[in-house]
């Protein structure tokens, strides 16, 4: 339960963001019903967000009291993009965002197949054919398991309505 001695890159910035977010949330909670009564809908949210503010301040204090890594700002930024948000993570999150964006248009099955193919190719690094076979197999399995066995309604696309 002891703090790790070394700073993770971006830890200080993250704790500042937490404090800012908690303060904004506390303000929002206050605006629900203010201090008009002790059993109003806003009281418990205020207690929760006040806890967030307090704990975020403790986290912030620790992040700044802890000895820094002794790096320059440039080195820290480089380490942040190497250890915390490496290009692989950025790419995968961008792919998920794109997957969600095209889903209303392509429909769940087609969008999933494309997403699975691109992401698997990127992460698995095998031949195109192997990736293609794997994608086709998994998409078919997902369709059978969820649409046929579990009877889940999957999002349909506007492009190929009725087909997928």
């Amino acid at each position, binding site marked *: 339960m002891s703090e790790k001695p070394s700073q993770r890159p971006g830890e200080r910035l993250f704790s500042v963001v937490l404090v800012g977010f908690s303060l904004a949330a506390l303000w929002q909670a206050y605006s629900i019903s203010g201090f008009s009564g002790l059993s109003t809908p806003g009281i418990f949210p205020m207690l929760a967000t006040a806890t*967030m503010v307090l704990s975020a301040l403790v986290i912030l204090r620790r992040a700044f009291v802890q000895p820094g890594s002794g790096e320059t700002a440039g080195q820290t930024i480089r380490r942040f993009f190497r250890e915390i948000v490496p290009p692989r993570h950025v790419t995968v999150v961008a792919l998920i965002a794109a997957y969600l964006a095209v889903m209303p248009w392509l429909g769940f099955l087609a969008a999933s197949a494309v997403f699975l193919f691109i992401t698997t190719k990127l992460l698995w690094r095998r031949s195109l054919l192997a990736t293609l076979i794997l994608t086709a197999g998994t998409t078919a399995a997902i369709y059978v398991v969820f649409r046929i066995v579990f009877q889940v309604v999957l999002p349909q696309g506007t492009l190929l309505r009725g087909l997928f």
Partner: protein
Amino acid sequence: MAEVFAQLSLSWFDPWLLFLTGAGTLAGIYVGAIPGLSVTMAVSILISFTFKWEVNDALALIAGIFVGGVYGGSRTAILLNIPGAPSAIASALDGYPMAKRGEAGEAIGLTTVMSVFGGLIGILALALFAPAISSFAIQFQSRDYLLLGLIGILLVGTLSGESFAKGAFAGALGVLIGMVGLDPMTAEGRFTFGSINLMGGIHYVVAMIGFFGVAEALVQLHTLDLPAIKQKIDRIVPRLSDIKRYFSLALRASGIGTVIGALPGTGGDIAALLAYDHARRSTKNPDPPFGEGNKEGLVAPEAANNAAVGGAFVPMLTLGIPGDAVTAVIIGALFIHGLKPGPLLLTDTPHLFWFTVGNLTLANVFLLIFGLTGIRIFTKVVECPKGVLIPLIIVLSAVGAYAIQNNPVDIVWMLAFGVVGYFLKIYGFQVGPVILGVILGPMMDANFRRAMIGARGDPLVFAWDFVSHPISLVLTIAFFAMLISQTPLWARITRRGRTPV
């Protein structure tokens, strides 16, 4: 009595329930074993598909996955030195050295038998103690539930995280997420920003899938290229002499596991570590030494973490307080089927309680069968590369998030929670308390206001109620003791006590 027996044996004789329990247990073993998949993740996603099912069917499947999953974690701990679940961390300490000596099969066999033994002890405790605790808990008032919720979040937050502040932040963040939407008492909007999409609130299953599914997948991207290690598997069925020899240790470890599992906030991981510690202290002249493939070091944590399953069901079913992340997810599953875990569950729906007891027992029988067979196929499946697994987890998470309310906005929430959860995990926060907060937040809010209304809005009467009733007083003391033990003041006091003058 006849009614109880009928419910106990329901899943044993109904072919469909038998199948679901078996399939759940088998799937659970794989889910628990494959690094990158977890029981919390699987159950989170599964809830969104099974909520239209009959209650019994869904419970059978989920119980199977839970029991199988807790056991499954030990398989990869032994074979690859990668615990598939936190409760298997202790099993890797001696399990992996055994595998390196070429005794992987023996280790798995012994683990299976002892897991089933521990599991059955845990269930026995559930059947014996839950009704008693439940009839006691009926006397609980609103403020007691508020305290129980706070204690639950506090325990999960403090025991699992890097620091108390981080645990408290995570729990409060969860409560905040749980508050979004129209207030159930006054229909006033809270954190809705006038958006229709937010008025219905954020479904806790979506939060679960985001925090456990997507966030975990993103964390796993860091260890994409970990090489797989292959082990030789020979004799699997353990020797009778071994079982006889370790029986007494397994019994003690099961006792530890049941009690630890039953405490809100502590689960199989802590149970296993404590049992391991007990084995180390109680074994004289260990041969080979602990940490080098000692069988006692494998038997104790495995019996304990499976016993903790039955133990964990006790506070979950009788008080409505989940002990850890896995039980938090299962409580979510019970809620979605219209069940209200708490003291009234045993009075209102006793059949479901006895069904669960019978079903957990059945899952353990399946565990024995599947645990001792099919290990060669298993080793092939576990080697499934993460590059294939991660995209699949994301697609399954998307299906799950959508299926819960057929709302595309939920998938966007899932991604947002996934990214937030990733940063929280990377910076040393636990996501378990967040989920507990989301689930328990609305319950705590309602009970806080009920208690306040009961005190006619007078804060002094409200505070007095917490110390003037025996049950509330005990819970209040427990809550503050936990709180104070986490402050720097307490650390200073204990340090002073230890420093020689």
